[in-house]
């Protein structure tokens, strides 16, 4: 069903027996990732502050900014699903369009809490889960996929608070990758840098300028001529989650329709103020 919904067919079972957590899994890139991981045979736990709209996996209400929520989530997954193999730290917010001049400290801190601290906590707790051995999992192993953004590679794609938070995710992912490698945990960690993806993160923008106009503008900013569908990012997540990417760690994977590839004409979409 889900494969049909996301328009592709895959050999099932590649991830059978494995357990994945996807934060922000109720919508957007998270929902697409959860569906594709489930299609590949993984048992998926969708962790989100909002209830999931469809049934790709077990839903757990979760606040990525709260350490006790992470402790409860991991304890629950290790009891009910018995192991953890894949962590997709996808929950994030755009934090509006604030510039260096218009952003207040409260907005800055809120965006860092969700986008930066949330990913930090996700990595920290996931590692403990992935190290856990048991029946069918004789040793520590896992893959952590952190969703950064093109805003983590260059500016002009979001507010200052968002841009800074995604830069933090990009670099902390490398620290995690190196640390796990040195400790021989067999846990990989990579960052994904999506361009514009047609997800609810743009709801605020659509409200401001209208969906048609906004989407046309964003389509044109990608050399490939269009925004991405969530499924296209889900495919990148799936690849990084699986053993197909077994030698990839600490990498920055841009899936951005070419945005960061060449020289870009900068057109402030909304007033840079």
């Amino acid at each position: 069903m889900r494969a049909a919904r996301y328009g592709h067919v895959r050999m099932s079972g590649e991830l059978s027996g494995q357990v994945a957590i996807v934060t922000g899994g109720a919508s957007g890139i998270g929902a697409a990732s959860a569906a594709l991981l489930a299609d590949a045979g993984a048992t998926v736990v969708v962790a989100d502050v909002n209830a999931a709209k469809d049934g790709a996996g077990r839903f757990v209400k979760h606040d990525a900014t709260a350490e006790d929520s992470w402790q409860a989530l991991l304890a629950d997954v290790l009891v009910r699903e018995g192991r953890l193999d894949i962590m997709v730290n996808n929950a994030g917010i755009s934090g509006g369009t604030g510039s260096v001049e218009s952003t207040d400290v409260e907005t800055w801190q809120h965006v860092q809490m969700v986008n930066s601290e949330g990913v930090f906590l996700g990595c920290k707790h996931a590692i403990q889960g992935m190290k856990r051995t048991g029946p069918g999992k004789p040793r520590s192993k896992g893959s952590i996929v952190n969703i950064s953004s093109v805003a983590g590679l260059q500016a002009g794609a979001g507010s200052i608070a968002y841009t800074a938070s995604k830069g933090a995710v990009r670099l902390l992912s490398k620290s995690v990758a190196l640390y796990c490698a040195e400790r021989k945990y067999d846990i990989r960690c990579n960052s994904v840098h999506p361009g514009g993806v047609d997800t609810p993160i743009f709801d605020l923008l659509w409200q401001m300028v209208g969906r048609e106009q906004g989407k046309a503008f964003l389509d044109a900013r990608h050399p490939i001529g269009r925004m991405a569908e969530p499924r296209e990012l889900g495919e990148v997540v799936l690849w990084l989650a699986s053993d197909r990417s077994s030698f990839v760690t600490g990498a920055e994977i841009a899936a951005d329709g070419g945005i960061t590839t060449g020289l870009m004409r900068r057109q402030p979409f909304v007033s840079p103020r």
Partner: protein
Amino acid sequence: MSRLADKVVLVSGGASGIGAATARLVVREGGKAVLADRDEAKGRALAGELGDGAHFVALDVTDEAAWNKAVAATVEKFGGLHGLLNAAGVGVRNSIEDCTLAEYRRVNDINGLGTFLGCKASIPAMKQSAMTHVGGGSIVNISSVLGLRGASYAMAYCASKGAVRLLTKHVALHCAQMKYNIRCNSVHPGYIDTPMIAPRLDQPVGNMSGRQWLEELHPIGRLGRADEVAAMILFLLSDESSFSTGSEFVCDGGLTA
């Protein structure tokens, strides 16, 4: 020497390390330096040593009101603001497994939020000064080689310096789009012989001293000196770099080569 003639530069972390070395160079090159630091004793002593071209203000970089006061004091003392160096920062060793949420937030507040607030507080005054100054304003943010590459035992620090690297680009684009005549660049030092890394020099790594281990990390075979980074910062603060904005300037003895 007058590569910074009549330019007023506000330096966070100006009491020691890269900030202090830059303040010395600013004054030597004909500019005015305002040393902003939490360490009042050291900051006042250096300002006194540098004479009429220098002034000290107390500053906690995570406090927006303190930043606004520092900028106001700078304009009151020297009549304008042309340059900002965000050099205040903390270097902390921790990994993804042993870093607490409180420590992650503390490091990111000082290095990330502190740099953001410095830019935010300075832009209004810098805009005014840039209107009457051909070369305009220049903001220099100290990131690190660890804003370019990862390190297993600098998790929170890596995150904070990655944030600085990217927020710098935002500030550069914003000021360019608003036609403020203000540039903004990041500097990425390797390990520089400053108080920040002093604790590490005494900690042996295997059979090497901490200092030797860090020295040999750099292809050039030694630690950097604060005045070597200050020389790069001086270039960025001066009109010599007038077409550079939103860029990453690396000063690392070949570490990331």
